[in-house]
């Protein structure tokens, strides 16, 4: 490993990647294709799309990646940003719980490359 590669701190990588994720979910997603996805299209073509039933959470405030309480495009942006943050918090919390469990962080792997 060259010395130059180590100058970027882990914190900088994490913050940078988080900003990219927020940008993708909050801005770029507004320009994403709105055509049906692969499975939806196949289910329409093959005639089993109508077996879909009402989603139990269809009336939620963020249903369909659209924050219903915000007007226009901004609703999609708010939903995307909120989703990234919720997933980040839950993922980080789950990771922390896993690490705190007995046997976590055994020296076995910390001596790795």
């Amino acid at each position, binding site marked *: 490993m060259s010395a130059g590669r180590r100058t970027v701190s882990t914190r900088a990588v994490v913050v940078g990647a988080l900003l990219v994720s927020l940008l993708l979910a909050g801005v770029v997603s507004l320009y994403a*294709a709105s055509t049906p996805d692969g499975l939806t299209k196949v289910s329409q073509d093959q005639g089993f799309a109508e077996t879909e039933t009402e989603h139990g959470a*269809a009336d939620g405030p963020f249903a369909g990646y659209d924050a219903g309480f915000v007007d226009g495009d901004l609703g999609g942006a708010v939903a995307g940003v909120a989703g990234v943050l919720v997933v980040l918090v839950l993922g980080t919390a789950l990771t922390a719980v896993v690490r705190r469990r007995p046997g976590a962080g055994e020296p076995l792997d910390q001596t790795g490359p």
Partner: protein
Amino acid sequence: MHVPDGFFDAPTSIATGVVAVVAIGVSLRGARRELDDRTAPMAGLVAAFVFAAQMLNFPVGAGTSGHLMGGAVAAVLVGPWTAVLATSVVFVVQTLMFADGGITAIGTNITVMGLATVVVGYGVFRGLQAVLPKRLALVPVLAGIGAFASVPVASLLFVALYAVGGAAPVPLDTLTTAMVGVHSLIGIGEGLITFLAVAGIIAVRPDLVRGARPVLAERTLEIRTETTGATA
């Protein structure tokens, strides 16, 4: 490829639910060994990235789109056990908060889009890594190839499940052709996004990419034996 409520009968949905619960339980144990001081800060972030990237539907042919599934990119970045947990978090949030993917189909979606793409994506990645030269520049390429392969295989798993417990009688040969066809195209996007994400982290901190560790270990050895520095 989020499966909505109603596509599968109850026994199939329950069976995939059991598969998902068992897989998550096993992964909770497996992830303990993966989550060291370098992987742990990345795990929640990888889940957040997969969520964000899944919002980006890209066009594949007329009137159809696709988006990242994410098992391969997550597994290469933080390890396969942690990847199962990270993608599962994404699918649970998507169904409960965004009504994307049926609530009764959560087990199916975790199994097909999460588990399958982790197993296939990471399996292909490690398989290629074992037989090809240990070069850092190859890591994002092999990750991309694994990601590309994982999507049509996931679509095949969907077809297999549909054959067992699909809600409508659909000819399996045409369903297979249609699903694998469109998801091979979507796989190209999966491969590209995976390549870019892995290459991006490797460019700044290769040691934070778990799938690059065998290569970094090899490289350290090479530098010790070749004092010319030509390997850098």
